């Protein structure tokens, strides 16, 4: 285990501490107004509030499916980062969304995403959107994500040698 000393980070904890920063650096997430409420290892929770400018059916006032896609895509990507022990960015390879029922007008949508398998290059995720419990789903998602090798902005900084 110690033949290759590499600092391990609790990425989920770092993300949890910076929960609001993560949305502010994503303009489209700001536009759709979802919030991330909890980050644990490989698991992310969020809330998508109902907003008039996100309505996809003016007759019923139901939020557009694209908003749920955005929400679950983002949560899945974050669940990938939260499953790792070093900071890496991920890019969506593909995402499948199944719409079970329309969301209720005026109600918050809860989103939950998990990264259930991780290889060196790919993350596998699934996600759920619902009002109250996972028994009554609005939508589900299944997505795969590619793990980006290098961090942008020059060479990767050396982690400080603080390990005993």
């Amino acid at each position, binding site marked *: 285990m110690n033949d290759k000393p590499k600092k391990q980070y609790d990425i989920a904890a770092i993300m949890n501490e910076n929960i609001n920063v993560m949305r502010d650096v994503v303009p489209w997430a700001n536009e759709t107004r979802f919030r991330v409420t909890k980050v644990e290892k490989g698991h992310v929770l969020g809330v998508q509030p109902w907003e008039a400018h996100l309505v*996809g059916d003016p007759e019923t006032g139901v939020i557009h499916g*694209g908003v749920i896609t*955005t929400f679950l895509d983002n949560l899945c990507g974050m669940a990938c980062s939260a499953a790792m022990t070093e900071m890496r960015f991920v890019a969506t390879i593909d995402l*499948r969304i199944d*719409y079970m029922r329309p969301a209720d007008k005026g109600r918050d949508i809860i989103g939950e995403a998990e990264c259930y398998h991780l290889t060196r290059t790919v993350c596998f995720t699934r996600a759920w959107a619902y009002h109250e419990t996972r028994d009554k789903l609005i939508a589900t998602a299944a997505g795969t994500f590619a793990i980006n090798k290098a961090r942008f902005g020059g060479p990767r900084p050396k982690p400080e040698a603080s390990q005993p």
Partner: protein
Amino acid sequence: MNPQLTNPRADEIDAILKRLPFAQTLGMRCEVLGDEMTAILPFQEKLIGNVAIRALHGGAIASFLELTAMLQVFLVSDMPRPPKPINLTIDYLRQGHAKDLYARAYVLKMGRRMASVRAEAWQENRAEPVTALMAHFLVATE
């Protein structure tokens, strides 16, 4: 005007886009020639998903493609209103740059209950799509 070149549904497409708050939020528009429609998503700062590499957000592209597919089904059908999505699969093929995005959708099968639709989005080069979508819509009107 040559009646064969105008599609009465074309004006309806425009009206739907104007009525749809989320389509206005995205800022998309459509150009219709007969049964052929090109959707246009002019670049806006708010569509960015990653400020560091200035890439469009996958969710914004997916939303744009879903609306394009939905409107294409409406265009070639006689449905009174746009169809509801059942499911969709999105393939992110290339990075979406901070530029205008275009899309076209093809109805692969128009059934009595469901429609299968494929849509592709591209930027400078049509042959190099940024994102592809496959979706199913409910077209039954009870």
